[in-house]
């Protein structure tokens, strides 16, 4: 082999990464070609120079900075699964299993679509949420129609269709090709950066949690592809109408009043409940306090001279903002608690 053929192998030769055949060729060549031998020597020195670089110390401030940033991030939640660009339609056979599983799970009706702002400071879209315990046994005797999707509410498909943003098209029940066809009961437009609110009707299933009035925040995290176990079907697109490569995790955040149940939820995803009773009490208290503060300041303000009033104005204004903020916070919490709203929060890209 000539030098040209050898030169490209010399770097790997130094690392002992040549195949036995190449190794033999290089060794034979190096014995008679001093140019290539020189080359090996230069490369060896080059590698040695690079390797001679001292290891540097991690700067002292690094850890504290990183810690603060990590804490500020909150728990990692963006689970992303690879999915085919276009989800295949389910055959009857494939559908049979998730349908049976869904029988024991919960049904989601994603219907009426309208904007609902301000909840938890997050702009959200509101949908009706109808958890219902399916009546069918997991080993169905009849046809696969395990889920009662509830009232197939008038949807607002036009509004959704006119928005080619990230959308999840959700259907309940078996595939349209299956023997017991059920019409799609809703199309939800999801923006992965914003939560979707699914409200639970007041007559939804409830579980007695004892006499104490308690508020719970429950989160149910499950990958979108688990939605099929719930009987929902979906396609996901990004803002440009391109199919999503990654499936974001959907997180249901429920505020349960008196322990509203999510039947079967624990079977399809991880649920966590958090008692927010104290949070509600605290929000009530701070709203009251900031209102008192503002009222007191306002009383003082009204008794002052115009010059003094001008001086006091910023203080009064900031107290007012504080009061409004606390009030909004309380309103938001109470609204969640009172309507048992479920946030369907899409996390991920």
């Amino acid at each position: 082999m000539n030098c040209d053929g050898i030169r490209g192998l010399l770097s790997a030769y130094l690392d002992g990464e040549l195949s036995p055949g190449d190794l033999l060729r290089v060794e034979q060549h190096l014995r008679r070609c001093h140019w290539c031998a020189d080359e090996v020597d230069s490369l060896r020195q080059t590698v040695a120079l690079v390797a001679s670089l001292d290891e540097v110390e991690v700067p002292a401030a690094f850890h504290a900075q990183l810690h603060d940033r990590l804490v500020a991030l909150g728990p990692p939640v963006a689970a992303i699964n690879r999915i085919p660009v276009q989800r295949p339609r389910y055959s009857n056979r494939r559908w049979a299993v998730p349908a049976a599983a869904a029988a024991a799970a919960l049904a989601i009706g994603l219907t009426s679509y309208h904007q609902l702002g301000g909840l938890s400071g997050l702009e959200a879209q509101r949908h009706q949420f109808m958890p219902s315990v399916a009546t069918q046994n997991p080993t169905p005797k009849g046809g696969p129609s395990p889920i009662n999707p509830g009232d197939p509410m008038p949807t607002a498909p036009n509004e959704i269709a006119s928005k080619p943003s990230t959308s999840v098209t959700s259907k309940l029940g078996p595939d349209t090709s299956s023997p017991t066809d059920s019409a799609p009961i809703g199309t939800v437009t999801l923006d992965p950066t914003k939560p979707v609110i699914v409200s639970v009707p007041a007559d939804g299933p409830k579980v007695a949690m004892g006499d104490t009035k308690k508020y719970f925040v429950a989160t149910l995290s499950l990958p979108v592809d688990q939605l099929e176990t719930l009987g929902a079907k979906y396609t996901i697109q990004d803002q440009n109408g391109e199919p999503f490569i990654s499936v974001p995790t959907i997180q249901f955040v429920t505020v349960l009043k008196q322990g509203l149940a999510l039947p079967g939820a624990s079977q399809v995803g991880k649920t966590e409940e958090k008692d927010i009773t104290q949070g509600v009490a605290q929000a009530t208290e701070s709203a009251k306090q900031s209102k008192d503060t503002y009222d007191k300041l306002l009383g003082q303000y009204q008794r002052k001279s115009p010059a003094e009033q001008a001086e006091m104005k910023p203080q009064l204004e900031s107290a007012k903002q504080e009061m409004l903020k606390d009030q909004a916070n309380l309103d938001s919490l109470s609204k969640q608690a009172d309507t048992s709203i479920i946030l369907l929060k899409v996390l991920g890209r």
Partner: protein
Amino acid sequence: MSKTLDELLVERAKRGDVEAFEQLISQYERKVYNIAYRLTGNHEDASDVAQEAYIRAYSSLPEFRGDSSFQTWLIRIVNNACLDELRKRRRQRVTSLDEPLTVDDGEVDRQLAVADPTDNPEQALERVEIQRAVQESIDALDEEYRVVVVMRDIQGYSYNEIADALGINLGTVKSRLNRARNALKEMFGNLELLAPRVVYSGRRGRTHEL
């Protein structure tokens, strides 16, 4: 089945336990920081990049399924974060070896930093200056080449590990490393960092090693 410490820490970190995550990465922090430092060439950028990489790793924890070791997974993220950052910077600022070296106390011409060529190279360049020149040469490589050199010759990863971490095939690792080392060899040669091999010139131009 018993779990390794890493697996337990990953589980806790996935649930939002920042301390568990910090314990997890503490085992690799020198390695990670040094990769970032050698890829960026200075502490400020290295800190930014390493932190960015950790943030990315933390946020992506739910994606970590344990198919590879945590270290492999983390290094992959670090390298990708570094590469992204370097590409971003390259768009903003292109440097070449012809530009003057910037040192803490101002600018010096690259040739001055390399010293008088009539001097003995070993004496002419202090260790710190050699290191600086080597780092500057590494900085001058395109990031794809820089990263393989750093991983192989500084961090000591195998070709397989590099291929795995960068998501490229083994042949690409070999050819990039070969090109990168040859480019460095040229630069080091120009900077007179390479000692010539002592040879004896015999008759008819034939040379023999002593």
